[in-house]
């Protein structure tokens, strides 16, 4: 079992949990968190390199490092692992954000308990991304969700009980749909007479889910994951949840957890049920298309920094699901890039907001101003994050959005020319409009918060970032710039998934 490299993505956090339980003081806790998350980064990079090596050698399997161990034989439940480029990208993203998040919560109260829950959450996240067994996947999904309640409820701020409850309940509601969908998939996973399976690859190979069942199970699964992906109208947990969550939790939640939604939508809903995806995508296309502009418009008038970013996340994550539904190679690649990009830059945003809030004790942009003069480092970082968010070339947002737009425009035009209606085309153009609205709200915040005269003279005595804050933000900025400057590397990494014959049924070239 321990010969498979992937299993260590779960083992390392578990070991960290054990060590954290033994820690006596805050220094040891920090050491465990930092060393552990560095270990995870190292592991992801190692897996990435191995993966590239194997691919370079000509291996064309849909997943690599595949392994499976039974843990509940009567229901065929396995701990099945395997990764492709998309999972590796997600693993890399998660480990970086866990690393940055550890630094962002350097001085949190009750560090031991906090990190215990945080690392438990990460265990779920990593487990989710390496699993290819639907049941195990779902289990890790839940492991990732539940700690959120305590993390927000205990370490949060503001109306935290309400937010924590709302977030947990809405996500659990999504899980209910999801579970129904997954069980449905299980019972139709194999042709008549063959043993049923939870294994994604086998399900895809069998392609045994009948058409009628697909059109029932696809919405279930998609909505289930879509709730976590903040799909309109199931997004309202996100503003409240993010606003109340402590910094590192916001980072992890917006940066990684919301990606679980997008990843799941792709990996489970579309991967296993392509026909239904083809036929029913229009419903969700409308919803996600609305999310994109709706979130952006709402962000334009909010005055609380975290709310603004939460709505911005709704918009950006909407774009992820939107692109996935285009069922087009380029757009889907763009969706995954957008997940990476949004994960990093939102984490950066929330880290910065947490740091500013920790100093000024307010998140109202009307109560602040001229931060550039007082906190130059944080302000510059904020501007960079903003620029990434509004899609400045050279930072990650641009490449992701452009890939999505090129892909979805192609899908839309193809539909239009084939006489299949202009829905995709219209929504693509609407989604394109979001780049303008994004610019509006980002520049509004940047102008009010960072520029202009100092609003509150008490703020003049604030000190700029400490070394751990600098490290946390610098890591994220470097990653954002890396994706922005060398997109083709990530493009090729992700793109490979869309090559296999699995996707021929979607009409993807």
């Amino acid at each position: 079992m321990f010969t498979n490299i992937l299993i260590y993505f779960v083992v390392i956090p578990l070991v960290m949990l054990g060590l954290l339980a033994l820690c006596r003081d805050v220094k040891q806790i920090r050491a465990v968190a930092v060393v552990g998350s560095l270990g995870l980064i190292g592991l992801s990079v190692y897996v990435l390199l191995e993966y590239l090596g194997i691919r370079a050698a000509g291996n064309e399997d849909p997943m690599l490092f595949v392994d499976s161990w039974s843990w509940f034989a009567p229901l065929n439940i396995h701990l099945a692992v395997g990764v492709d480029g998309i999972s590796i990208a997600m693993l890399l993203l998660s480990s970086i954000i866990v690393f940055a998040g550890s630094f962002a919560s350097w001085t949190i109260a009750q560090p031991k308990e906090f990190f215990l829950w945080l690392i438990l959450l990460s265990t779920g996240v990593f487990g989710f991304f390496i699993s290819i067994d639907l049941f195990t996947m779902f289990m890790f999904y839940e492991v990732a969700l539940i700690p959120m309640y305590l993390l927000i409820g205990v370490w949060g701020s503001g109306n935290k009980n309400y937010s924590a409850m709302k977030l947990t309940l809405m996500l659990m509601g999504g899980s209910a749909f999801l579970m129904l969908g997954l069980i449905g998939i299980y019972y139709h996973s194999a042709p008549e007479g063959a043993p049923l399976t939870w294994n994604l690859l086998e399900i895809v190979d069998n392609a045994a889910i009948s058409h009628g069942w697909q059109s029932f199970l696809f919405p279930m699964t998609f909505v289930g994951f879509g709730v976590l992906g903040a799909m309109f109208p199931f997004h309202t947990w996100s503003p409240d949840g993010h606003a109340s969550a402590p910094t590192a939790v916001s980072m992890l939640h917006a940066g990684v957890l919301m990606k679980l939604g997008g990843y799941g939508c792709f990996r489970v809903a579309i991967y296993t049920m392509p026909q239904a995806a083809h036929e029913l995508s229009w419903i969700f296309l409308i919803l996600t298309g609305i999310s994109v502009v709706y979130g952006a418009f709402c962000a334009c008038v909010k005055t609380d920094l975290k709310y603004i970013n939460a709505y911005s996340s709704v918009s950006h994550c909407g774009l992820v699901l939107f692109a996935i539904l285009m069922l087009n190679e380029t757009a889907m690649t763009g969706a995954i890039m957008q997940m990476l990009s949004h994960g990093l830059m939102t984490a950066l945003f929330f880290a910065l907001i947490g740091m500013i809030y920790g100093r000024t004790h307010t998140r109202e942009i009307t109560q602040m101003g001229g931060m550039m003069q007082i906190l130059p480092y944080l302000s510059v970082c904020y501007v960079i994050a903003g620029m990434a968010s509004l899609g400045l070339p050279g930072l990650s947002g641009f490449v992701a959005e452009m890939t999505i737009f090129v892909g979805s425009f192609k899908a839309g035009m193809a539909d239009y020319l084939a006489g299949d209606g202009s829905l995709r085309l219209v929504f693509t153009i609407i989604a394109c409009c979001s780049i303008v609205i994004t610019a509006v709200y980002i520049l509004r915040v940047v102008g009010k918060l960072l520029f202009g005269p100092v609003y509150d003279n008490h703020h003049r005595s604030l000190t700029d970032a400490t070394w751990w804050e600098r490290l946390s933000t610098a890591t994220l900025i470097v990653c954002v710039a890396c994706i922005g400057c060398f997109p083709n590397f990530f493009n090729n990494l992700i793109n490979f998934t869309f090559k296999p014959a699995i996707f021929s049924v979607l009409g993807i070239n």
Partner: protein
Amino acid sequence: MSATIPVLILAIPLFMFIFLGLAGKKMSHLLAGILGTLGMGTVLVLAYYTAFHYFFSGDPAFISEAGERLQYIVFNQTWLQFTDRLVISLGFFLDPISAMMLVVITTISFMVHLYSLGYMRDHHGVFEKGFQRFYAFLSLFSFSMLGLVVATNIFQMYIFWELVGASSYLLIGFYYTKNSAVSASKKAFIVTRFADLGFLIGILVLSFYTGTFDFTSLTSVPVEGMANVYHVDLSTPNAVLGVFQSSAAPMFMGASVLTWALVLIFMGGMGKSAMMPLHIWLPDAMEGPTPVSALIHAATMVVAGVYLVARLFPLYLMEETSLVIVTVVGAITAFYAAMVACAQIDIKRVLAFSTISQIAFMMVSLGVARPEFHEGLGYMASMFHLFTHAMFKALLFLGAGALIHAIGSNDYTAMHGLRKYMPVTHWTFLIGCLAIAGIIPFSGFFSKDEILSACGNYSPLVYVWMSMVAGLTAFYMFRLYYLIFWWKEHKIPEGHHAPHDQAWTMSLPLIILALISCVAGFIPFGKFVSWNGEPYDFMAHFDWGVASISLLVAVLAIILATVMYRKENSLPEKFKNALPALWDWCHHRFYWDELYMFITHKIIFNGICRPLAWFDRHIIDGTMDSFAILTNKASELIRPLQSGQVQMYVWIYIIGALLLGGVTVLCLI
């Protein structure tokens, strides 16, 4: 040609940006400034070398045996691969206009770098706060602009297009503690962003039909009769051929998709080049430091729109409609901006509107260019005007900067009579004014004259219209000139120094640019730049009739300005009172800003965003909350059933049991 020098042209400014941005705070102000200037100087030399090499080396890669200038891709590196054919590459594209733009950009940029060494410090020689940042941003801008002009494909252009937008944003908002600067920068970014939306969609449409982003494929026209011009091998399936085949079928709202694509791309150009109705950001952008206005908002970035249309000119030629739109937008903007410029008080605003007007000239010139009229004279004229305008407008802005630096105000009302105190500035400014007014032998005369001849070839209406605008140009420029340098000077308060010419770092660029403005008209531009690469004799198309008429118009306008503004008199007041509405509208720029304010704040913010946010909080969130409330209420409702009273449970149990038992008994009976 090896790729080393082109790479360096792009890499040095980028490196300077990163270096000054990260390490600038650690070094002294002066060192940062000198490093930036030296870096730019190096780029200047390299760019001149490249352009010289391209035009004069006679290399068969650059010029065919028949003497046609060829497009040459120095290098092209894949940056992002969407599909097999849709690839964004980063490369270096050499053709006549990009080589010319390299020269323009590096020249102006170097002048501005040098000039800023003097400008960005106060009278005691103390450098302004953020001096290093200023040089870092200037380097970023130079990098982006250079990247834009050497783009090998339309997406590379879009990338750098966005980057120049961002660096323009950063530079306009350089004085970020001033609210007006912040909102001006925001406005500039958002307006151009909106235009870029059109650009983006245009690119998407174009690339969908042609399956390529590359300029070489896009601008090669494989049609009989034109093929010999473009040396395109008709046997290979070509991207644009696809456009022809498919655009014949797909129409969209009465126009072919190609027209739509071109108009949308032009919309991007309208935003960057401040064409009406997307011009409103440019006057406000004058909040930035004056050297920035000279570099970005007069000479280089704002002509990006013209450059874009010129770059895609063969495509525009295919669709008559799109060129007509370019012409009409240009003509209206030119007139509008000239009118408004006559009624502005802030000297930088006057220059800004004059910039808009001059760029509109270039647009019109492109719009009227047809191969059948003097082998596309308009195209060459447009590029020529771009070149000369960059020089004299930078000169005017830098001169205005010197004035502002000396006086400390942007209003001409605070200036008057400065010719005695600031002779260098005065003479260079005068040269700039003469150039822009189109007086022989300054550069503006030649370029503007060719634009007017091209217009004349196309349509008499356009010709008359543009001549009128040219007259207005001469009028408002000399109005400005007289108001600044003539009239009675203000009394100098006790203890203040009289205004005086600035340090050599500021004067030298003025003198150099003035010299260029004097002689640039004699460059045989047609030898270098023409729409299809074929050199032709410049003077062969020179129409002395048109030239003399335009000269006459300019002189008349100058005389009128002299009469009205040479000395303080009541004529302007009378004129103003005679047509109060006209003055009012011109002074308020035809209330465009108010209209935009209304649309953005009243309609978009208050009409869409706020209701949506309310809807989100109360309807969507309210629904979700009401699920929770409903659950709570329902549980309140059934909670009494679980009273904890065992007897109650037994009662219910008994009733149930009795019912069941009763049923059983009945069955037994």
